[in-house]
């Protein structure tokens, strides 16, 4: 069995090949997909309309997998053992059908003018259609339908939802929940037409859509119609190959995911497993894993799946778990707050059967693992927020992550056995929390209860986290490390707490980092205002705001580098790095640079580094805003700002994004209307694209938002935590961040603004200040007893016409 061919390249196919690769399959894997790209994250599809690119959504192709994109399989020759495509035949030993499903479009007149909501191309088409439209209607008020309606709303349309059932989301909520959901959605300005079908799509004489006619004859005005009325499995290939299919469609499979031909498997939405078609990512992933394991000789089986769902649609939390009825039920309803929670219980009132939540999904997280098990507390306690529910002990076989089928016991094993000490560790060990993320609060709870003390102590000298120390220093107005450690710590500090406290003092007071006692807190880089290199020499990086430099200043850098014999290299941040300086040379080098108008670039500090830019609208024919001017303004505004870790930024003048702003801690991309602000990007060890925080900001709004973002980060992040990890660690993530810095939910904004004002008002170039102070300058010597003598251990060889470190004899 050397050749595995997969037909269809959606998420289930991806999970299948990924599992094969993980299990060490060493044969040939070929995936045939009709879309122009590998599988992408359909759960996050809607984010494509708000700026996430197709590339970001696309899953990486596992190494060694051969892909045939833009290729449609047209037949299966089971005798010969190959799949027929337009290009020829693809021979297989094992064939896996992952052909997915197609949206169901009811055969009503005018249906050919409607759109569906499934692929990136569908969304492109809807976006184009929305440009000339004022109103849109989505047919289907299920999970995906509401998402499509939200997308239309985000595209600026007045959105309608037409649902056949008497209430929205009939598969997830009952009538009571449906009515609470409806009022939430109507409050957002969407119209709900429940209990209504579609008679026809109405068009004008030129074939343009003008509305949707309901069976009662009334017409909903709309220029865009999107169908989201269920799915139909794509089983045509299997059908024509003579494989068994269900009466109402779907490729029949056994619990090993095998079809009626033992050499052919089917997984995902095209498979009819136990008489059911599954349209949720969790079960489809499980099917893919089962098939992969079976093919590798394992014994995994698919015996149905938990269809529990929790989601946030249009800002409303909706969740359903377990059964949707039971002998007894307990309901909590608060129409004012828009909250509806219901639990279903067995007739002896002992066993939890299921539940429905609208407006507050917390019972989903705490109670779903108890489905089929004894009620952990009286139902009335469980339904009130903040009651004992959070302290429940989960049984080992309780499923915590339904997307990846991970139970509480698996997580406990990861914590105790594999040493997972935080949520990231659990994710890496078990995959729990890596798909929809709804179980992350549960993972945190399991960690806390596991007895693994997640210590927040900075080091042995302080039992506080960095954020707590920041507050202590701020509120008690502490000015020195000695005062802080005497009053709030023990011992005399170390290489962990000293630079951290130095950074806090710098963020809050902004004095010179080498003033008085603070000189002894700094890491060697800050102590010498330069970057130490492997041989004990330092490198020098003058600030070049926005990467813009005059020829005269460029020449000065060249002359300094030449005169001091420094290795010269352009950095990734549009600056120039000069290497190989001995400590006693640093003041001489900087005297020349400061005289020519340069300032410290803080390349050595946990501080703002650079704000890169593309050339922008001044020169570029595509640019829509002056990205260089903005980058310079931002770099000058935040220069010298000390922070928990380095901060990088970039500004792009148009959506082509030549400045790579989305790999930065804060990145700005120009739009026709203003600026889009992205936060939490990272290159480095764990690359991460920045998330869109706010769209189309004016220049003032942009600067105010960045001011607060940076100050809130500086206040609350851990030591050496980049913004990417910080945002991931925020409870409530990006939404919470928006609430705090844009809606001022904590009443902090005035304080954050004042702190930034203080920073800007008190900024001074620290190299200039050092050159002006004989005391500070006197420390820049290799040998205190022989100030003029260079360090004999520092020697250089040469490479490509420049110096390189060599080993001293």
């Amino acid at each position, binding site marked *: 069995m050397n050749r595995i061919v997969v037909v269809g390249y959606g998420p289930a196919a991806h999970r299948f090949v990924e599992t094969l690769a993980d299990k060490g399959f060493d044969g040939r894997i070929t995936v045939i997909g009709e879309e122009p790209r590998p599988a992408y994250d359909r759960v996050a599809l809607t984010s494509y309309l708000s700026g996430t690119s197709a590339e970001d959504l696309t899953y990486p192709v596992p190494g060694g997998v051969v892909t045939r994109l833009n290729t449609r399989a047209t037949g299966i020759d089971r005798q010969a053992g190959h799949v027929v495509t337009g290009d020829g035949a693809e021979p297989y030993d094992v064939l896996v059908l992952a052909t997915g499903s197609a949206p169901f479009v009811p055969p009503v007149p005018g249906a050919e003018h409607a759109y569906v909501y499934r692929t990136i191309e569908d969304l492109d088409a809807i976006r184009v259609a929305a440009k000339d439209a004022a109103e849109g209607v989505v047919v289907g008020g299920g999970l995906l339908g509401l998402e499509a309606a939200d997308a239309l709303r985000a595209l600026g349309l007045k959105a309608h939802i037409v649902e056949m059932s008497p209430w929205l989301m009939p598969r997830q909520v009952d009538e009571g929940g449906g009515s609470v959901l409806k009022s939430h959605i109507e409050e957002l300005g969407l119209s709900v037409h429940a209990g209504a079908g579609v008679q026809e799509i109405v068009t004008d004489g030129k074939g343009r859509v003008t509305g949707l006619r309901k069976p009662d004859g009334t017409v909903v005005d709309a220029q865009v119609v999107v169908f989201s009325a269920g799915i139909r499995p794509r089983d045509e290939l299997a059908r024509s190959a003579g494989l068994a299919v269900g009466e109402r469609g779907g490729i029949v499979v056994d619990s090993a995911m095998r079809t009626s031909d033992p050499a052919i498997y089917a997984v995902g939405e095209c498979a009819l497993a136990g008489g059911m078609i599954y349209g949720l990512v969790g079960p489809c992933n499980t099917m893919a894993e089962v098939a992969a394991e079976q093919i590798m000789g394992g014994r995994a089986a698919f015996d149905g799946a938990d269809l529990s769902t929790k989601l946030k649609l249009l800002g409303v939390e909706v969740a359903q778990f377990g059964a949707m009825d039971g002998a007894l039920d307990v309901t909590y309803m608060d129409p004012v707050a828009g909250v509806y929670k219901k639990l279903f219980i067995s007739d002896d009132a002992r066993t939890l059967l299921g539940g429905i939540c609208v407006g507050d999904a917390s019972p989903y997280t705490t109670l779903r693992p108890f489905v089929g098990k004894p009620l952990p507390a009286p139902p009335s306690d469980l339904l009130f927020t903040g009651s004992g529910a959070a302290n429940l002990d989960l049984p080992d076989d309780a499923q915590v992550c339904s997307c990846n089928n991970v139970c509480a016991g698996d997580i406990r094993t990861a914590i105790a056995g594999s040493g997972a000490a935080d949520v990231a560790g659990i994710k890496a060990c078990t995959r729990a929390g890596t798909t929809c993320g709804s179980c992350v609060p549960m993972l945190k709870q399991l960690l806390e209860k596991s007895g693994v003390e997640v210590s927040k102590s900075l080091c*042995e*000298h302080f039992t506080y986290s960095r954020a707590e120390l920041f507050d202590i220093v701020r509120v008690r107005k502490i000015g020195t490390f*000695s005062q802080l450690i005497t009053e709030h710590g023990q*011992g*005399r*500090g*170390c*290489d962990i*707490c*000293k*630079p951290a406290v130095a950074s806090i003092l710098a963020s809050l007071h902004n004095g010179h980092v080498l003033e008085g*006692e603070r*000189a*002894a*807190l*700094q*890491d*060697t880089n800050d*102590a*010498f205002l330069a970057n*130490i290199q*492997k*041989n*004990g020499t330092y490198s020098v990086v003058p600030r070049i705001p926005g990467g813009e430099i005059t020829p005269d200043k460029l020449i000065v850098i060249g002359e300094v580098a030449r005169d001091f014999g420094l290795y010269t290299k352009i950095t990734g941040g549009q600056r120039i790095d000069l290497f190989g300086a001995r400590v006693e040379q640093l003041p001489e080098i900087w005297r020349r640079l400061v005289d020519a108008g340069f300032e410290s670039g803080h390349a050595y500090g946990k501080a703002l580094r650079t704000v890169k830019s593309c050339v922008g609208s001044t020169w570029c024919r595509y640019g829509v805003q002056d990205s260089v001017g903005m980058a310079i303004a931002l770099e000058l505004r935040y220069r010298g700002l000390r922070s928990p870790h380095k901060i990088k930024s970039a500004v792009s003048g148009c959506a082509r994004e030549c400045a790579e702003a989305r790999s930065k801690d804060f990145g700005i991309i120009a739009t026709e209307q203003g600026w889009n602000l992205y936060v939490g990007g990272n290159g480095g060890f764990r690359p991460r694209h920045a998330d869109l925080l706010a769209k189309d900001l004016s220049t003032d709004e942009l600067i105010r938002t960045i001011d607060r973002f940076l100050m809130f980060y500086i206040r609350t992040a851990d030591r050496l935590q980049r913004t990417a990890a910080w945002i991931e660690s925020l409870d409530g993530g990006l939404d919470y961040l928006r609430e705090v810095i844009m809606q001022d939910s904590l009443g902090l904004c005035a304080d954050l603004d004042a702190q930034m004002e203080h920073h800007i008002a008190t900024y001074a170039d620290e190299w200039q200040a050092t050159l002006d102070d004989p005391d500070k300058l*006197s420390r820049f010597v*290799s*040998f*205190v*007893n*022989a100030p003029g*003598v260079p*360090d*004999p*251990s*520092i020697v250089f060889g040469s490479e490509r016409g420049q110096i390189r470190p060599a*080993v001293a004899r």
Partner: protein
Amino acid sequence: MTWTPVCDYDAMLPERGVCALVGDVQVAVFRTYDGALHALANRDPFSGAYVLSRGIVGTRKGEPTVASPLHKQVFSLVSGRCLDEDAVTVPVYPVRVAGGCVEVSV
């Protein structure tokens, strides 16, 4: 025992080091918060670079220490022993104050 003058005691910042060249030996001299002096070889045995005098001075469980500025291994200022890797030790030198001047003996 020959003593070589390094610098005035008052010129040394508390909790920072300086480096002295004694013949061809580089000596890192530290003044701790309580006023005590310690002297170690300046060479960081992990990287081979002569940089220990530029490390951060602190304590570990009460013992005065310096951390290498390159990869942060911590050394005892008293014994020269690396507290992160048992087998590694750097030389320790005698140090004293004579007439307000710091002196080391190599």
